[in-house]
C-alpha cells in the first residue's frame, strides 16, 4: 500500500486529508471524532481576538444547491468565525494536540488589521503546541463587513503586511488562506509570498445566493424574511478552485510556493487532481458536512489504490505532475484533430448527443429510423459536448486522427507537427515559425 504520509511545511500528517477551518472543526468533540475517523489533520475553526464572543444568527445558516437525487452539489453559509470563548478554544486545541501528536493541527485566525491585535493572539496560539496557523483572509460574509476576512484578502498590501507581522510574532509555519472573490488570484498569492508566508491555501468560499424563496421573496437561507450572500463551497466550486490553484502553481513569481488545495474535494480522485496541480495536501469541508467524517476512509483507500496502480510510492511522486501541462490557450496544438466516436454496443439510444449536437452545436450526429446514432466526420469539430451529455461513461470518445490522413471536415491533411495560435496565419500578430 502506497505511503500517504504527507510533509507539508515540515508538518507531518499520516495522509493529505485535512479538515478545513469550518463548522466541523469548531470544537474538541468534533475534532477528536475526526481524528478517530482517520483524518490526517484539521485546521481549527477561525479564532477571533479576546473579548465578547462572536454572535451568530439564530435562524438557518446554510443554503444548498442540489443535483439529481438531491445530491448536495454546493452549500453556502453565513456562519461567522467561532462564537466560543477564545480561551476555551485554546485549551481544547492544546489538549487535542497533546493526545494526537501524529496529526496536524493548524489554527485559523482572524483579527483586525492592527499589529497589536496579531501580536496579542499569536503567543496564545503558539502556546497550544499547534503545528501552524492559517490566516483567514477569505470569508466573504459578515466579518468582511467589519474589515476582516475577504476584505483583507482583496487588498494584496494588507495580506503582505499582516503576513509579515505573523512571521514576526509566531515561530511556526504561516499559511495564508485566499479569497476567490477577486479578479486575479495571482496577486494576493504573490503578496502573501512577499510577506513571508510559508504557504497559501485556497479557495475560501465564493460570494453566493443559492436560491430565492418564491413565496416570501427572500434569498435563502432566510432570516426572518431577509437573506444575505453567503460563502459557497462544495463540488460545484471545485473547477473554479482548481483553476486558481493552477494559476498560482504556474506563475513564475509564486512557483514553488506550497499550496493547500481547498474546494469541493469529495473523493480521493478530487484530492489526487488537486495534488497534480501542485498542492501538497487538501482540505475538506462540504463532503464531511454532507456525509460525516467516515468518508475519509474512501479517500485513503482510493488514493492509495490509485497510487499503487500508477506505481507512485509517495504523494511527492505526482505532486504538480499536471502543472507543466496546464498552459495558455495560445499554446494549444491546433494541428491536433479528433473526432467523436460512438460505441454502438454501449449506446442506449437516448439521443441526448443528437439533441445537443443538432440544436446547439454542429449538426454532426446522424439519427436513423431505428435510433442508431452515428457521427458525421465531415461536420464534427470534436467539441466534446456529446461526450459530456452522454449518460453512459465512455460510450462516446474522442479519437485523435492519425497524421497524414485527411480531415473530412476541412479536406486538409492532418499535420503531425505541433503548431499553435502564435504562429497561425490567421493571427494578425503571429510570429513567423523558425
Amino acid at each position, binding site marked *: 500500500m502506497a505511503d500517504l504520509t504527507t510533509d507539508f511545511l515540515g508538518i507531518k500528517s499520516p495522509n493529505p486529508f485535512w479538515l478545513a477551518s469550518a463548522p466541523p472543526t469548531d470544537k474538541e468533540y468534533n475534532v477528536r471524532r475526526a481524528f478517530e475517523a482517520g483524518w490526517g489533520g484539521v485546521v481549527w475553526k477561525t479564532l477571533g481576538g479576546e473579548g465578547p464572543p462572536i454572535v451568530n444568527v439564530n435562524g438557518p445558516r446554510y443554503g444548498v444547491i442540489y443535483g439529481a*437525487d438531491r445530491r448536495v452539489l454546493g452549500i453556502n453559509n453565513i456562519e461567522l468565525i467561532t462564537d466560543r470563548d477564545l480561551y476555551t478554544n485554546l485549551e481544547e486545541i492544546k489538549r487535542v494536540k497533546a493526545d494526537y501528536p501524529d496529526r496536524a493541527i493548524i489554527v485559523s485566525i482572524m483579527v483586525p488589521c492592527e499589529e497589536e491585535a496579531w501580536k496579542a493572539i499569536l503567543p496564545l496560539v503558539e502556546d497550544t503546541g499547534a503545528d501552524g496557523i492559517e490566516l483567514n483572509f477569505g470569508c466573504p460574509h459578515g466579518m468582511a463587513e467589519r474589515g476582516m476576512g475577504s476584505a483583507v484578502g482583496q487588498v494584496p498590501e494588507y495580506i503582505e503586511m499582516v503576513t509579515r507581522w505573523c512571521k514576526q510574532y509566531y515561530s511556526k509555519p504561516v499559511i495564508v488562506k485566499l479569497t476567490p472573490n477577486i479578479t486575479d488570484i495571482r496577486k494576493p498569492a504573490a503578496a502573501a509570498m512577499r510577506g513571508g508566508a510559508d504557504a497559501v491555501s485556497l479557495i475560501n468560499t465564493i460570494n453566493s445566493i443559492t436560491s430565492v424563496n418564491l413565496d416570501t421573496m427572500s434569498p435563502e437561507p432566510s432570516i426572518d424574511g431577509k437573506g444575505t450572500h453567503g460563502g459557497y463551497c462544495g463540488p460545484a466550486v471545485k473547477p473554479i478552485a482548481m483553476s486558481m490553484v493552477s494559476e498560482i502553481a504556474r506563475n513564475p513569481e509564486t512557483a514553488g510556493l506550497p499550496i493547500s488545495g481547498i474546494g469541493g474535494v469529495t473523493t480521493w480522485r478530487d484530492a489526487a487532481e488537486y495534488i497534480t496541480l501542485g498542492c501538497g495536501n487538501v482540505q475538506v469541508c462540504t463532503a464531511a458536512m454532507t456525509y460525516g467524517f467516515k468518508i475519509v476512509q474512501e479517500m485513503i483507500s482510493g488514493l492509495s489504490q490509485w497510487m499503487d496502480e500508477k506505481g507512485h510510492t509517495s504523494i511527492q511522486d505526482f505532486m504538480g505532475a499536471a502543472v507543466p501541462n496546464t498552459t495558455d490557450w495560445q499554446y494549444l496544438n491546433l494541428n491536433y484533430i479528433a473526432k467523436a466516436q460512438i460505441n454502438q454496443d454501449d449506446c442506449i*439510444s437516448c*439521443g441526448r448527443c443528437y439533441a445537443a449536437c443538432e440544436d446547439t452545436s454542429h449538426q454532426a450526429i446522424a439519427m436513423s429510423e431505428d435510433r442508431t446514432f452515428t457521427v458525421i466526420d465531415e461536420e464534427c469539430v470534436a467539441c466534446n459536448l456529446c461526450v459530456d451529455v452522454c449518460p453512459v461513461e465512455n460510450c462516446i470518445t474522442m479519437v485523435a486522427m492519425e497524421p497524414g490522413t485527411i480531415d473530412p471536415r476541412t479536406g486538409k491533411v492532418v499535420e503531425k507537427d505541433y503548431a499553435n495560435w502564435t504562429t497561425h496565419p490567421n493571427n494578425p500578430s503571429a510570429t513567423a515559425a523558425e
Partner: protein
Amino acid sequence: MNSPYTTGIAASRLGADELAENFGDLHAPFDAHEASVAADRCYFCHDAPCITACPTDIDIPLFIRQIATGTPEAAAKTIFDQNILGGMCARVCPTEDLCEQACVRELAEGKPVEIGRLQRFATDRVMDQGVMPFTRAAPSGKKIAVVGAGPAGLSCAHRLAMLGHDVTVYDANPKAGGLNEYGIAAYKSTDDFAAREVDWLMSIGGIEIKTNMALGDDLKIDDLVGCFAAVFLAIGLGGVNALGLTVQGEQGHVVSDAVDFIEELRQTNDLTDLHIGRNVVVIGGGMTAVDAAVQAKLLGAENVTIAYRRGRDGMSASTYEQDLATSKGVKLLFNLQPKAIRGVGDATEIELEYTKVDDGKLVGTGEMRRLPADQVFRAIGQTLDTDAGLKVEGRKIAVTGAGRTSRAGVWAGGDCAAGGDDLTVTAVAEGRDAAMDIHSTLMGDA
C-alpha cells in the same frame, strides 16, 4: 370458519382484513419523495422511445421533467392533453410492454424509469383536487351520440365536448366505465377509481350519459344516425367465446366466464360474500385469465392453475403478468387443452389433453392430465355482440382512417373495431382520434 382447505366452493376462505389487504393497490402510489427520486432517473431523451411506444403519444419526458421540477399539475395536463383517461392507464397499462420496455434505462440497466407510477402520481394529484384542466369551446350546435361508455367512448365524448359539441353517451350497463368499471382486476382500480374517473371526466360539461341502453334492443343504429350529426360506436366485445368440451355433471355450477367473475369482484361490496373453489382452473392465456386466476388466489383458493393450450411464448399475457400470477401462487401449465369436466353434482376434476404443433396446427397428443377442479373459468376471448349492420373484418367492425365505418356518419373504436390490440390505452387513442375526425368532418375542414 372456512379456510383455503375447505372443500368445494365456499365464501370467506380468508378473513376480511386479509381480503382487504389482498385487494388493495397492487402498487402503492408514490409519495412526493418517491416520485422525485423516480423522476430524477429520466434522461429526457431526444424523440424519446417511450413516447413512440405509447399508443396515445404522451410526451413522457416532458411530464416527468414537470414532476421533477415540482409542478405535477403541469405534468398531469401534459398527460391529459393526449390521454384523458391517463389516470386509469397509469394503473392498468402493461407499461412493461409499452413505455417502460422502450425506456433507454431498461436497455442500460434492466430497470426502466417507473413511468406508470409517475403518471399516476401526476394524474392523481389533479383528480384529487377535482380540477378539470380543460374547458369547452364555443357551442358548435352539433349533437353527437356515443354508444358505449368504456375507455374509447369516454375518450371520444370528452374530446367532442371540449370541441364544443353536445354528446349523449349510451351504455348497456347500469354504470358507465365499461371494462374500467367491470373488467379490470380489483387491485388495479381501488377505491372506486373507475367511477370517480368518469365523474371527473364528465365535469367538463356537455356530456350526458344514459345507462341500461344497449345497441340493438333499445337503441337502433338507424335512429341514432337520424337523430345525431355523428355516431361513435364503442360497444366493446360483449359476447364470450365458447369452449368446445364435453362436460359431465352440472355444467351450470362449474364452468363460468372469467369476465363475469371479474365483474362480480369489482361490483361486490363485501369480498367475504364471494364464493371461490378450493381448486380453481382457468382456461386461457391472456390478461383476463391472469386477472381471474390471481384474484381467485387472493380470495383464498388453495390451488389455482392457468391451463393454456399453447406454449408460454403464445400467451398474450405479458411476462410481467405471468410473473405476477406465479408470485401470487398461481401455477401456469402450458400445452394443455380442456377435454372434460367431471364430478357428481359439483365438479371435482378437469381432464386436459396435452397438445403439440403439427404442421402449423395445434393438435392433441392423446396424453391426458387430470387436475382437481371445483371451479373452472373460461377466459378464451370475447366477441362482438352486434355488428349494427356494418361491414365486418375479422369478426370486428371494419374501420378505415380514424375509425370511419362502412356507413357515413358512423365511426367506431375500441375493442369492437378491427385493428388495435384491445388495450385500454389503445381504446383511448382511438376514441380521441375519432373525435378529431368527427369534428373535422362536421365542421367542414376535413
